[in-house]
């Protein structure tokens, strides 16, 4: 999330005070991307130094200072909107690293580990779905932000599902030298885990 470009976008609507910018940013994205007022003023100072915004008060930064976008700022904003996000090289993916490492750690049950992450992703997704359900029907901006997160997380769940299928088809040899039997190991642990979960379900 580029805070500087978000602020330029808000200023493209007209001159605004710093505090107002923070409020508007929070109103539009705050439930997903909270932003404190200190970040706003620091970013505005940088934008002003770069000639992308100007203020109508020569005094120090504060709530009374009004900011306006410059012509250079407008050009910067237009250019940024049309620049595809750089995904090369891909961002470091902690989950992929954890799953790959778990294949090499003696005693680590990769299926169990993947399920922990899968459940966490779905619980996160439930929060975003809830956010959409509770939002006003016409709050399109919030729906778009929630959708973006939902589909990103769904991609992670898809990857976990595909990884599980691949590992079942081609189990990785146990690092301790025992024969590859990942699926059997999982089945052996299943009754304990299932009993625990089902006990929880009955108590609900």
């Amino acid at each position, binding site marked *: 999330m580029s805070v500087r470009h978000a602020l330029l976008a808000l200023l493209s609507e007209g001159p605004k005070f710093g505090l107002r910018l923070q409020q508007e940013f929070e109103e539009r994205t705050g439930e997903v991307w909270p932003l404190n007022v200190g970040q706003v003023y620091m970013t505005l100072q940088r934008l002003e130094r770069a000639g992308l915004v100007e203020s109508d008060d020569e005094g120090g930064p504060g709530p009374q200072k009004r900011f306006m976008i410059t012509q250079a700022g407008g050009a910067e904003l237009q250019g940024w909107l049309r620049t595809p996000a750089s995904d090369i090289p891909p961002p470091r993916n902690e989950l992929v690293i954890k799953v790959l490492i778990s294949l090499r750690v003696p005693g680590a049950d990769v299926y169990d580990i993947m399920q922990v992450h899968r459940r966490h992703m779905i619980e996160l997704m*439930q929060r975003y779905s809830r956010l959409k359900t509770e939002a006003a029907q016409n709050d399109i901006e919030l729906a778009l932000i929630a959708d973006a997160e*939902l589909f990103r997380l769904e991609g992670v769940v898809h990857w976990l599902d595909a990884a599980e299928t691949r590992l079942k088809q081609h189990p990785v040899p146990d690092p301790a030298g025992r024969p590859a039997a990942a699926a059997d190991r999982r089945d052996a642990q299943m009754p304990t885990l299932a009993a625990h979960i089902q006990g929880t379900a*009955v108590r609900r």
Partner: protein
Amino acid sequence: MTAALELREVSKVYGSGSAEVHALCGVSLSVSAGELVAVMGPSGSGKSTMLTIAGSLEEPTSGQVLVAGMELSGASPNDQAKLRRRIVGYVFQDFNLLAGLTAVENVTLPLELDGVRGRAARSTGMRALEELGVAERADRFPDELSGGERQRVAIARAVVGDRRVLLADEPTGALDSVNGEAVMRLLLAACRRGVAGMVVTHDAVLASCADRVVFLRDGRMIDQTRTPPGPESLLTSGPQR
């Protein structure tokens, strides 16, 4: 909270000897009135078997199924059929509406099969269509409706009358993601009126609309979501029907 649908140690085995397939292995799950539970799992994990057993379309090999407090396994085929018509509603991926009947006729069909007279059935059917926002399409035939409208009619048929349990198998499969989400919201709203819902889906986004998500693997329930998705619990049931 009342468990409107309860599976206790339910197992299902198909075939015998070397051809034996354990589709479900000791699954226990309780769904409360007002709650929507999504069931996720890979192909062959037992999702659909669980749904058909919950709806008494299939007998479990062992274990108990209780619907609205009544045990299904001991009931006669006649009683089970009656229960299916009165208490349990189904929503299918391909809607399963009868092409020769209008929307409201499709909705009232289960009532009429159960002996509810024409005018009373129509009035109950219209109420269900109103709840789903398609009352003005009541006299249209399925091929005159959009995909989203057809699915709304199918949900109205599943909740019409005094249904206590709503079962759905990939109910959004034919719809795009935004319309699929709308269907999930309708299912959730139907549950809030006091129905226990169970929806089988492979779609994580749609599953996340549910109050709780349970995960099946190889016929076993291996996990479920544990935290309520918001600050206040979603599991409170709405006004009873």
